[in-house]
């Protein structure tokens, strides 16, 4: 069994695996974002060696690939925690007291926005709209939608993520 604490470590860079990912996108037009998504799924972040590797494979400059990786919020330089909680901070959730509840959730885990718990179990991130605006305030725990967050949410989430 993997230790939870090791979850935040990157998966070791593996060039044959990366090459296989790039190969799967051969012939796809504008393949850089789909390739980066798949690399992140495999390595839990975009590891530094991925940038020159992908640049070489797609005949781009390193600067171009670096520019794309750093432009999009989804791409990580380092792995997130075992679970990722995205809390919506946009207007519809603000109107339903979302900021106050978000603060209580952060405090429950001793985190600031974007932080990861020391045991690596949970990362809490801000997001701006999950399309759950009629069930605000809303969140996404990994890919599970959660609506109508209330004052019970911090403890319920703590039970759910086991911390």
């Amino acid at each position, binding site marked *: 069994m993997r230790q939870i604490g090791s979850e935040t470590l990157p998966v070791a860079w593996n060039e044959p695996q990366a090459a296989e990912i790039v190969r799967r996108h051969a012939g796809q037009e504008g393949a850089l974002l789909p390739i980066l998504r798949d690399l992140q799924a495999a390595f839990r972040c975009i590891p530094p060696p991925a940038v020159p590797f992908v640049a070489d494979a797609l005949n781009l400059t390193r600067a171009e690939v670096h520019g794309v990786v750093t432009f999009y919020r989804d*791409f990580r330089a380092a792995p997130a925690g075992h679970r990722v909680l995205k809390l919506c901070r946009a*207007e519809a959730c603000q*109107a339903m007291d979302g900021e106050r509840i978000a603060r209580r959730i952060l405090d429950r885990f001793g985190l600031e926005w974007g932080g990861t718990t020391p045991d690596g179990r949970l990362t809490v991130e801000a997001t701006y709209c999950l*399309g759950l605006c009629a069930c605000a305030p809303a969140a996404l725990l990994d890919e599970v939608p959660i609506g109508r967050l209330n004052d019970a949410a911090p403890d319920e989430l703590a039970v759910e993520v086991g911390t």
Partner: protein
Amino acid sequence: MTLRIFVPRDAAARAVGADRVAAAIVTEARRLDLALELVRTGSRGLFWLEPMVEMETGDGRLAFGPVTPADVPSLLALGPPAAKAHPLCLGRPDDIPFLKRQTRITFARCGVIDPLSLADYRAHGGYRGLARALALGPAATIEEVVRSGLRGRGGAGFPTGIKWRTVAETSTDRRFIVCNADEGDSGTYADRMLMEGDPFGVIEGMTIAGFAVGASKGFVYIRSEYPDAIRVMREAVDIARASGCLGADAAAGGFAFDIEIRVGAGAYVCGEETSLLESLEGRRGQVRAKPPLPAHKGLFGHPTAINNLLTLACVPAILADGAERYAGLGAGRSRGTMPIQLAGNVRHGGLFETPFGLTLGEIVDDIGGGTANGRPVRAVQVGGPLGAYFPRTLFDTPFDYEAFAARDGLLGHGGIVVFDDRVDMARQARFALDFCALESCGKCTPCRIGSIRGTETMDRILRGERVEANLALIEDLCQTLRFGSLCALGGFTPYPVMSALRHFPEDFGRPRLAAAAD
């Protein structure tokens, strides 16, 4: 007899427990040894009643909600003959006032059918639109869309038929259809609901567009914040391809058309069409200067019809039932229906599709039922984070493109976020500037730098430092943003900022407006 029960698989219904209710139904049916057919539908869009469960009875479907797992045994014990007596029974869904008042064209199937059943889709009118387009031919199909008066539902309101005609008339060896499903505006969820509840409608709309303009490839660009929608759309495209609705001879219509699903990566600005095209090409999502228009020189330099998902989803019904029927609805130059999305602090939050022309007050007070917590409605933001805040004194504004423009607002993608009397409008104005700073692509200076200077200036106002001088700076900065930005992100950020300042001056340390002032 098999018991047929419908539970939404819509992400917002799941967010309030639809999966737990579905599981409880399966468990209870097994315990009672009942033959059960559980259909996971999209949502009808009445979110205060979610999870809303429907049961097939001798009198058609009956709705129940909001249902918890604890309600399931009593519901199944009654069964179809007696379920009407259950305390959570809402009657027939179409008789619920919120649904009864709607004109559902784009959302006719959403919440009704199994979204991944092509047979269900066809049984509910699916692919009638494409059949008529094939009979009319490409040019007449475009003219049908022109005559329907359909305008882009993403916010810009550009006539769809004219865009298609431009793409069709531009000579090239390749054209593209791009469906913009990067629905990032807070308060909007119509694209998400359709992708999860009626994906074949989107696919048929894109296929008609491809046939009309002569494109053989379409892309759907879906934001990564919508994992459920991505899954359903991918599965629907696979089903459509396997059944011949997409491919070398799409729907046996004698033309090639296929669709690829692409996923965004967390950049709001990619909802802007040229930024979306950059992202599809594998670059930073930075906006392009226009001209050239995407219709002339779009994806990979080829003529591209890039339309909002709702726009494309309107097309099958327009073709199936004729342009006149669609154009016969609406107000002024805003023809047809708009799926309005009620969100935030609202009692009856949900999707309300209706012809243009209702007043903002009717929508917020009558249909939405005011706030969820019963406090007075103080402000509503219409059209997402770049839309204006409206006070109650402007609740007589009719919901159409021109009427909103005349009041310094915009419809955007049709989202309305309701705030109660505790809202601090100076903080909302600050958020609008901060959001612009956070999401700016960085290409043009007013947006990249102006948004940050604006946030800093608002902070000084909130601290009470030289308030009048700093407000003058904000107004000046908004002028620069409005006229100096390349795209709507910088260009429209002044809408929420200036509307907050104009209609709620007391929140900025200025004298309150007289009640009658407008």
